[in-house]
C-alpha cells in the first residue's frame, strides 16, 4: 500500500469545489449578468417545462438548459452529482415500469417526467452557480424577498467554507484517535467506520458553532442590521445592461422555438 497526495475526490477538493461553485470563481456567461435578470431567466426555465406533455418540446428545453449549464461553466463536482442523480432516476423509472407490469408507454411517461426534472435542475445549477452570495442576496432583495432571507443566503455562504473546514478537522481527529480496523469485503467495514465518524463529528461542530454565533448576533445588532434601512442602497448598485436583455431574449426565442418544434415534429 502506498499513499499519495490526492487533488481530486478528496475532502480538500470537495471544499474547493464548493467554494468555486458558491462564489462563481469560474466566471461564465450568467456571472456577468444582473442578478435580477438571472433570477427572472431561471424562473422562466423552471416554470415552462410544466406546461407541456410534448416529448420533443421537453427535449428541446433540456437542450437549452444543457447549453446554458455549459456556458455557466459548472464545475465537475456539481455536474457529477447531477449526472449520477439523472442516470439513477432513469434506471429507477425503467425498473419501476418493468416491476409494476407497465409497458413502453409507462416508461416513456416516466422518461418525460425525469427529463422535465433534469431541465429544471440544470437551469437552477446554471443560475445559482453563476450568482455569488452578494449578488444573489441583492437580487432577492430587489424581487421583494424579506431582508432576513436575503441576509441568510449571504451569511450561509459565508459560513459554508468555515463549517466544512471545521468538519474536516473534527473528522481527522476522529480518524486519528479511533482504533484502526479491518477493511471488510469491498471495504464495507471501512465505509461503516467513516459513516459513523461523519455522524459523530456533528456533536463537537454544533457546540463549537453555537458558541461563536453569539458574537455574530451581537455584532449584527451593533452594526444596524435590525435598523433595516439599507434596501434601497443595495438595489441601487444593480444595472441591467445589453447582455442581460440579449440573454433573456435569446432564451425566450429558443423556448418558443422548442414549442414550435414540438407542434411540427412527432416522435414514434
Amino acid at each position, binding site marked *: 500500500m502506498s499513499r499519495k*497526495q490526492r487533488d481530486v475526490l478528496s475532502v480538500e477538493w470537495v471544499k474547493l469545489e464548493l467554494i468555486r461553485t458558491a462564489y462563481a470563481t469560474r466566471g461564465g456567461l450568467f456571472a456577468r449578468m444582473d442578478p435580477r435578470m438571472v433570477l427572472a431567466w431561471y424562473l422562466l426555465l423552471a416554470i415552462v417545462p410544466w406546461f407541456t406533455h410534448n416529448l420533443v418540446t421537453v427535449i428541446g428545453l433540456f437542450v437549452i438548459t444543457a447549453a446554458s449549464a455549459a456556458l455557466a461553466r459548472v464545475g465537475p463536482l456539481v455536474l457529477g452529482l447531477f449526472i449520477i442523480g439523472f442516470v439513477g432516476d432513469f434506471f429507477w423509472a425503467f425498473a419501476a415500469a418493468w416491476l409494476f407490469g407497465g409497458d413502453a408507454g409507462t416508461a416513456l411517461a416516466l422518461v418525460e417526467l425525469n427529463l422535465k426534472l433534469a431541465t429544471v435542475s440544470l437551469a437552477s445549477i446554471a443560475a445559482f452557480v453563476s450568482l455569488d*452570495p452578494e449578488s444573489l442576496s441583492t437580487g432577492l432583495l430587489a424581487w421583494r424577498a424579506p431582508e432576513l432571507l436575503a441576509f441568510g443566503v449571504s451569511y450561509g455562504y*459565508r459560513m459554508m467554507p468555515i463549517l466544512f473546514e471545521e468538519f474536516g478537522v473534527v473528522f*481527522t*481527529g476522529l480518524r486519528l*484517535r479511533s*482504533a*484502526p480496523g479491518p477493511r471488510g469485503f469491498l471495504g464495507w467495514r471501512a465505509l461503516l467506520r467513516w459513516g459513523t465518524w461523519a455522524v459523530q463529528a456533528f456533536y463537537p461542530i454544533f457546540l463549537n458553532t453555537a458558541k461563536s454565533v453569539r458574537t455574530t448576533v451581537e455584532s449584527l445588532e451593533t*452594526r444596524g442590521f435590525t435598523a433595516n434601512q439599507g434596501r434601497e442602497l*443595495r438595489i441601487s448598485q444593480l444595472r441591467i445592461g445589453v447582455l442581460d436583455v440579449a440573454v433573456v431574449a435569446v432564451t425566450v426565442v429558443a423556448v418558443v422555438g422548442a414549442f414550435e418544434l414540438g407542434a411540427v415534429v412527432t416522435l414514434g
Partner: protein
Amino acid sequence: MASHHQIPPTQPPSGATPIIELDRVSFRYPGAERDSLRNVCLRIDEGDFVAVIGGNGSGKTTLCKTFNGLVPHFWEGEFAGEATVAGIDTYESSVAALSATVGYVYQDFQNQLVRPRVRDEVEFGPVNFGMADYAERALEAMHTLGIDHLADRFVWQLSGGQAHLVALASVLAMRPRVIVVDEPVAEVDPAGAHALYERLTELNERHGITVVVIEHHAEFIAQYAKSVVLMDDGAPVWHLPAPQAAARAAELAAHGIPAPQIVEACEGLDLQAAPRTVDEAAAVLRTAGAEQRTTWPPIASASSDAPEGRVVAVARGVSHGYKSVSGELLPVLDGIDLTVRAGDRVALVGGNGAGKSTLMRLLCGLQVPRAGTITLDGIDTRRSSATKLADHAAYLFQRPEQMFLKDSIRSDVRMFPAGRKRADADALVDRVLDRVRLADLADRDGRTLSGGQQRRATLAIGLAMTPSLLLADEPTASLDVASRNSVIDMLEELRGAIDAAVVATHDMHLVAEWATRVIVLGGGGVLADVTPTELFASDDLLAGAHVVPPQVTALGRALGIVPAPLSVAQWREAVVLTETEVRA
C-alpha cells in the same frame, strides 16, 4: 472589603470633556445570582486611550458593553444607575443609535465578520443605516488602516491579523468617537498585535478617537495606554494615568497581571523604575551602571556534548503544496531536509504561510508529501495509514475545542487508549489527568473550561496516545500570561513521557524558555536551524522569521550582554549593577 466602592475612583487630572460617564451603574444578567457590575462610577475623557484590566469574571467585558448599549438593551437584565455616552443616556437610546458613536471589536473577531468579501464587510454598517456615502466611508476606513489592497478578498482568506484589521475597519466606517477593542492580543501573533496597537494609537492621536481596550498584557498597557482602569468584582478599584498604574506592580500581579519583563528586570537589580519600553529600560539601566557579570555565561554543562539521541523523525527532500481556489498549485515546502532526535524540543517559527502547520501534518503522517519522504520511527509515512501512525506521533490542533470530541475530558483522553484495547487504559488516563492537574475537572465538557485548562486537556489527550513525537500547533496562543506560563511549565515537565516534541509557535516566550532548537521556515525551506540564543542574536533571522524577541532578551541585547538572557531568571544570573559590585 467593599469599602473602596464608596470612594469615587481617582480620576486622571485633566480639563478634557468626558465622553463616557457612568454614575452608580449596576447590572445583573438575567438568571444570575449576583450583580456583574456593582455601583460603578467611571468617567472617560474624550481622546483618552484606556486599558481596562482585571481578572476573569471581574466585569471588564460587561462594563464595556454598557458603552454601546448592548447592556441593557441586548442583554436585558436588571439595570440601575445612569450611563451617558457622548451626552446620550444609553438607557433612553438603542444599540443601533449608539453604534454611530461607539464601535466594538470582539475578542473572537472572526465571528464578527458576516459578509463574504472585505469591501462588503466594511460597507455593511453604513449601508444598514442607509448612509448614501457608504462607499467613501468604507474606502476611508480601509485606507486609514492600510488595508485597501484587501478590499476584494474573501474574509476567510485573511490571516488573523488582517481579519482583525477588517473588523476594526468595519466599525471605523461608522466614524465612531469611541472604539472598544476586547483583548486585541489574544488571537494574533505578536507582530500583528503591535501593528494593531500602532493603528489604534494613530486613530487616537491623529483622529482624536477615544480608545478603550480590554487587555491582560502589561507590556502593551505600559507602552500604549494613557490611563488604566483596574476592575475587581464588578467595580473599578481605581482609574489612574498609565505611569502611576504601572508603578503599582504588586497590586497588578495580585489581579493576574504580572509586570512586564523589563520592570521585573529592573526589580531583579533592586532598581525602582517603571520603564514603558525596552529603550527606556535600557537607558535607565545604563545610567544605573548595569553590566554583564563575569560569571556569565555559565560554563556549558557536559550535556551539550552528550551523544545524539535516537532518530525519531526524518524528512528527506520533502516538497508539498496545495491547490488554490483558482486551480493552480501553491507550493508551501520545497526540498526540506530535517532530522528530529530523541531529546529535541523543537520550535518551528516563521511568518504566516511559511508552512509550519504543513510540515507538522506531514511529520505525523496526516498527509504525505508530494515529493521526498518522511520517516517516522523508522516507518515511511507513505507505507502506513494516518490512523496507524497515530501510535507514533500525536498532533494537537491549534484550537483546543476541535479536539473535544466527547462530552467529558476523561472520555476524550480515554478515547485513544481504550479504542486500541490497551489493558492499562484506565490507569493511564488517571495518570495523565493527574499530570496535567485536571483530575478534578475530568467530568466536564472541555468547552466549558478556561483557555489554559483547555490547552492542558489537549496535552492530556496527546500524552494518552503515548507517542514518540508530540506535535503541537500554537499551544500558547490566546492565553493570558498566567495560563501561558502554566502551559510552558507543563511542556517542560513532559521530558520523560515523550521522546521529542515539535511546536509551531509565534510565542517567543515559549521559544526562549522551553525550546532547545529553533527551526526557522521561510520561502519554502529551512532558513535556519539554531538555538534560541542564536536566533535572538541575529537581526536577519528575527526579521526573516517575523518574530519579536521577549523584552528581557531585547533588553539584554541593547545592553550588549552576550549571550542575551532568555528569561528573567537568566537575567538575574547575567547582569549586575556595577555600584553594587564595588560596594560588595
